[in-house]
């Protein structure tokens, strides 16, 4: 199980989702993607993307207007 750390600070829509999708292409089921962004839109956008792709939105934390979003890759066809 690998963790992909994706730093999207300083980017706004669609930057964080672009970075997330790029990391997802490399990831396997069971891996985690940790997306760090300062665009508040990244949280609902990642949530919506997870729902649509059957990946798991594990949660988001906020500190000093930086959002850390954790996603578990579960949607890929085995």
């Amino acid at each position, binding site marked *: 199980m690998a963790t992909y750390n994706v730093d999207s600070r300083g980017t706004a*829509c669609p930057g964080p989702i672009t970075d997330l999708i790029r990391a997802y292409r490399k990831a396997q089921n069971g891996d985690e993607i940790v997306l760090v962004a300062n665009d508040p839109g990244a949280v609902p956008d990642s949530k919506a*993307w997870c729902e649509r*792709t059957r990946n798991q939105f594990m949660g988001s934390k906020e500190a000093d207007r930086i959002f850390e979003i954790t996603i578990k890759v579960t949607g890929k*066809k085995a």
Partner: protein
Amino acid sequence: MKKIAIIGSGAGGLITSSKLAKDLSKQIRNEEVSITIFDRNLEQEFQPGYLEVAFRGTDPAKIIRRVEGLVSPGVKLVYENVEKVDLADRYLQTEGSKEKYGFDYLIISTGSSPDYKQISGLREDNMDFHTDAYNSNLIYQRISKIKSGRIVVGIAGLPYKCPPSPNESAFMLDEYFRKQGLRDNVEITYITPFTRIYSAESINEVIEPIYEKRSIGSVTAFNTDYVDTDRKEINSMEGETLKYDYLFLTPPHKTASFLKGTEFSDEDGWVKVDRRDLHITSYGDSFAIGDTTNLPISKAGVEAHLEGIVVANNIAAEINGMERKYRFTGRTQCSMETGFHKATFVVGTYDKPVEKIEPSTMNYMEKKVMEKIYWGSLHGHYEWLFKYHFKEDYFQD
């Protein structure tokens, strides 16, 4: 003698060389400064014109110019590609050569190009208008033979250049088949890995109703995994399949191969630069601009141009012993044709989110003006116009 090396004679490399040649004309005449562009291409193409060639049958010769006619006096051309850059020791080497070309300043503007290795099967069946004028022309010839069938168009992977271009191709295909009276025989479906038809919500609000009105279907959050050319199916990473007869997908893009694995690029080869002055992080006299940077903005000619102005200004100022520093604003401006002589624009900066701009004939005309002035703009002839148009977004100082 200060040696300035530019890698790539595309949109970014040429405007940078033109502004440097203008600001440093005296020093070039006195042989205190040299500017050299490295690129094996003898010709350049107006890439936004690929859409017109592929979907409207425009003569490809109209969007091609010889590079020698695009450079300003004083700029030298070396028609060779670069295969190695050593930023610490300040030299580059061209393909197959052991000779070390030393430089005092370096600008990398090597663009981006389709990467078919990421999606198996895609190259075989795809009609790709992101490669060159010749292939775009072949697409038009193939479209002319389509009388009915299922068309799948859209984004196969990220990143790619010109974010609106996949949507434009959907609108232009719709227009083409309507004009032929064949639209009812042709199903058009747009696919995208984003959760919206256009990634930025403001533009999505503008174009979603047009998709509905024109009966262009859409499948969002679709991550293309591979294409099965025998079964004529696109397979997503999540196990969905989509049938197609004709494919017009925008592939994910890659950087020039010599950038991969260097200490100054990220794991995919995109060059790590400062988002304001474009210097390659940790090297103050080397820069990268345009598509090849890892900046989280559109890969588009407008960015390459405005970044080139910032870099050229700052290098010339330093050589002239001046303090004046420009800073790039992140300004983007990509036109999106919505068909039937209308267009919208995707406009934003680092600090301002993408605006909502309704499609109009005026916008379409503005796009056409850009086509007319493109080659002259590489010479720097229209900076007065861009300054007026972009206002505070032209650069910060």
